[in-house]
């Protein structure tokens, strides 16, 4: 493991060093803590032929598909949560030929199980699922195994071991010991499953702050390759205790993504047209309205 100080780097350097053309890339986060800052930097650096995997592709993968970064999408629910469709994704799937996109589809439990297998370095994970459904028919990677103890047939899904997983979090220390609160999604499993891990945080804190509350650490520094400090890096997604979801933007994406021209104009203005996250934020000062209210918890006694 490299020495601690060298892990902290700007987003540009982290993406340049750890995300390569053709990689399987996971930017996880279930509605909460979706790292748009990393997705935008991958678009800016014009990565190509990526396999993008995530339970809910969300707006960030719709933008990356629209920008031409993706060769394949691995997912379990591809919609705009609470709003409607992801139109760049739909165009690629409904009208192949214009922008071919291979898809590999599971349910949420299937994707969670894939990351669990990947994190445990097992080849597959068994689950009681998929009987009577059409998913195994269209995805031959969903198979069955007979339990050697009970004789029951169980569904199996293959391990998912990404080349790189990017996790947004509230805080980490310089070594990448990372603390998350609020919805945890499948970030822990996705990080442990991955060959490389980039952690992007709202705040860099001293190791002592982490040590004062170790139960809140979701990802240990030993599996982290890069720590990027990027306040508001999850916008228009949210960070519990920092800022709320920008639901207006999620609603606006319905119209933006519906038109390839508008999507291109959006990327030109807010992704290609800015050098980094700070410049992106400077263009939309109104996001400060989303700043979180205080609901601080009392903490616990770790003494003995």
């Amino acid at each position, binding site marked *: 493991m490299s020495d601690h100080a060298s892990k902290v780097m700007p987003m540009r350097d982290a993406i340049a060093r750890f995300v390569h053309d053709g990689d399987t890339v996971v930017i996880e986060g279930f509605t909460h803590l979706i790292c748009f800052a990393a997705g935008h930097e991958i678009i800016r650096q014009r990565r190509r032929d990526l396999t993008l995997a995530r339970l809910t592709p969300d707006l960030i993968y719709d933008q990356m598909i629209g920008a031409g970064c993706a060769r394949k999408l691995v997912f379990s*629910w591809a919609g705009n949560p609470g709003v409607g469709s992801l139109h760049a994704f739909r165009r690629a799937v409904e009208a*192949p030929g214009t922008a071919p996109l291979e898809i590999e589809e599971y349910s949420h439990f299937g994707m969670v199980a894939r990351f669990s297998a990947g994190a445990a370095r097992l080849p597959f994970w068994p*689950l009681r*699922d998929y009987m*009577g459904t059409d998913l195994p028919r269209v995805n031959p990677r969903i198979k069955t195994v007979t339990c050697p103890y009970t004789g029951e047939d169980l569904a199996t899904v293959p391990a998912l071991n990404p080349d790189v997983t990017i996790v947004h979090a509230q805080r980490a220390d310089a070594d990448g010991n990372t603390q998350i*609160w609020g919805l945890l999604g499948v970030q822990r499993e996705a990080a442990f499953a991955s060959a490389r891990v980039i952690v992007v945080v709202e705040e860099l804190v001293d190791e002592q702050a982490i040590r004062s509350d170790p139960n809140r650490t979701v990802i240990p520094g030993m599996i982290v390759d890069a720590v990027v400090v990027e306040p508001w890096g999850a916008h228009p997604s949210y960070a519990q205790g920092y800022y709320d979801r920008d639901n207006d933007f999620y609603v606006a994406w319905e119209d933006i993504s519906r038109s390839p021209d508008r999507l291109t104009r959006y990327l030109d203005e807010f992704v290609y047209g800015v050098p980094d996250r700070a410049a992106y934020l400077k263009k939309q000062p109104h996001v400060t309205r989303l700043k979180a209210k205080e609901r601080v918890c009392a903490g616990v006694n770790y003494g003995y």
Partner: protein
Amino acid sequence: MMAAVAARELRNGEVVFVGIGLPNLACNLARATHAPRLVLIYESGAVGAVPERLPVSIGDPALVTGSLMVCGMADVFQCMLQNGRIEVGFLGGAQVDRYGNINTTVIGPYARPKVRLPGSGGATEIAIHARRTLIVAKLGPRAFPERVDFVTSPGLRPQGRLRRELRMPGAGPVKVITDKAILEADEATGEIVLAALYPGVSVPDVQAGVGWALTCRSGLAAVAPPTPQELRLLRDVLDPKRLFLKQ
């Protein structure tokens, strides 16, 4: 009306796997009326959620604040759902068929879809594991075809086989709550059949919104309209901005 009817299906103290939109309204209405001890679980990991605002998505931060527990999604699916802890699951979809199978994946062929829908999310496993499920969907010939184009969430008789032959732990869809009537599971045939009518609705009205010859239970029940208290809670307290209550 649909939200009020769905709320009445929930019993105090039950553990409910909540979806966004109408099921979320129904669960919070039940909590505000006859079922204050209802335990709301969202697939995002919030357990015992008490949202102070109507969540716009199932990952809303308001589900976290004040909840009993927040866990990762592996725990939700393995330790809660597959463990058998979920008593009621809500499901909806673009298509619901004669056997209560639901399609939220594609309209048309999978490889060349006419309309690509979002896919399963957690619906497949909720349909399999929840002890019973409630389907919420508006009637219409396109929404209720005889056979769905794709079985995302298995109903009472997916692919011609009954649930127990397929060793599914849950009972499947016991009721389908629509905008005109309540349909129920018929255990013997594995079909969903007409069980109760909303005020002012006739059997032909319901049949017009279903793509097969609907069987009627003998002695159809009448669904009581929403009470003034239910309407006041829905309109003034739970969804004052009319995010989900369109009519």
